[in-house]
């Protein structure tokens, strides 16, 4: 785990990394003042993104940050990997679509839980997903 002004950065390559990330996400959400229900939901969205890195991107990083926009504060998660990338982003984010053995619920639930979710990816160029949740 690395810590800089940009927040907490975690290397992700194996399932045990996920538990550490989820734990830290919850601590951060708690400190920011998210209520318990939202802490759990947002942490599960973080877990979706890191699980996808392990499953499809092989390895990458998860960054957790506290962000500000005018008078709002929010939580941001950035999932980055240099894996194969996603060729059809819209399809990937559709409920029930999975190229593997998953249920295909991960990305669609991230979209539902978070206020903003941006997926940047191209076949062969890795994936970067940025999701934000504003407090209030």
């Amino acid at each position: 785990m690395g810590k800089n002004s940009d927040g907490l950065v975690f290397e992700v390559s194996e399932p045990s990394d996920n538990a550490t990330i989820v734990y830290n996400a919850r601590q951060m959400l708690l400190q920011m003042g998210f209520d318990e229900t939202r802490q759990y939901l947002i942490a599960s969205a973080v877990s979706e993104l890191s699980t996808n890195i392990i499953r499809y991107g092989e390895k990458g990083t998860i960054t957790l940050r506290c962000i500000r926009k005018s008078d709002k504060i929010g939580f941001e998660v950035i999932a980055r990997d240099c894996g194969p990338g996603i060729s059809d982003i819209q399809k990937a984010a559709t409920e029930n679509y999975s190229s593997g053995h998953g249920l295909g619920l991960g990305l669609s639930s991230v979209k539902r839980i978070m206020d903003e979710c941006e997926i940047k990816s191209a076949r062969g160029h890795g994936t970067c997903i940025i999701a934000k949740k504003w407090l209030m």
Partner: protein
Amino acid sequence: MNNRSAVSGTGMDVVEGCLVVPVVGNMDPEIITRLGREILAQVKATQAKKVIINISAIKILDSYIFSIFRSMATAITMLGATPVFVGIQPGVASSLVDLDMDLGDILTAVTTNDAFEILRHQTTGPKPPEIVNDKPYINNYKNDGNTKERENG
């Protein structure tokens, strides 16, 4: 006759012919997978026809953990028992699937009592053998010690 018995070392319990499973600890997929195997073994051993799995301790239920529970439910059904999941955290189901109700074939209940209620009215599961004379009925009645009050006129 005692109709409640603990399945030693597992935290599981048999109540009214129903295997009651508390899921403790955190969201470790490996541990949950192992627990699933243990549940299947206990369903076979106890011949339970109903299984209540309390997952209220699982606060962070992502799609991966959810898929493990779903496979668990399918496997339990294949053994001829009906599983019900209790204690899914608020908002979790609706974040995972569009409609709260569409959790695959998974039955859910808010509390363990609700789960018992659902299982009592469950008709899609394996049907009990038909009762021809009234003797088996009397036996069933006696075994049903958990129901304290009956409409005894």
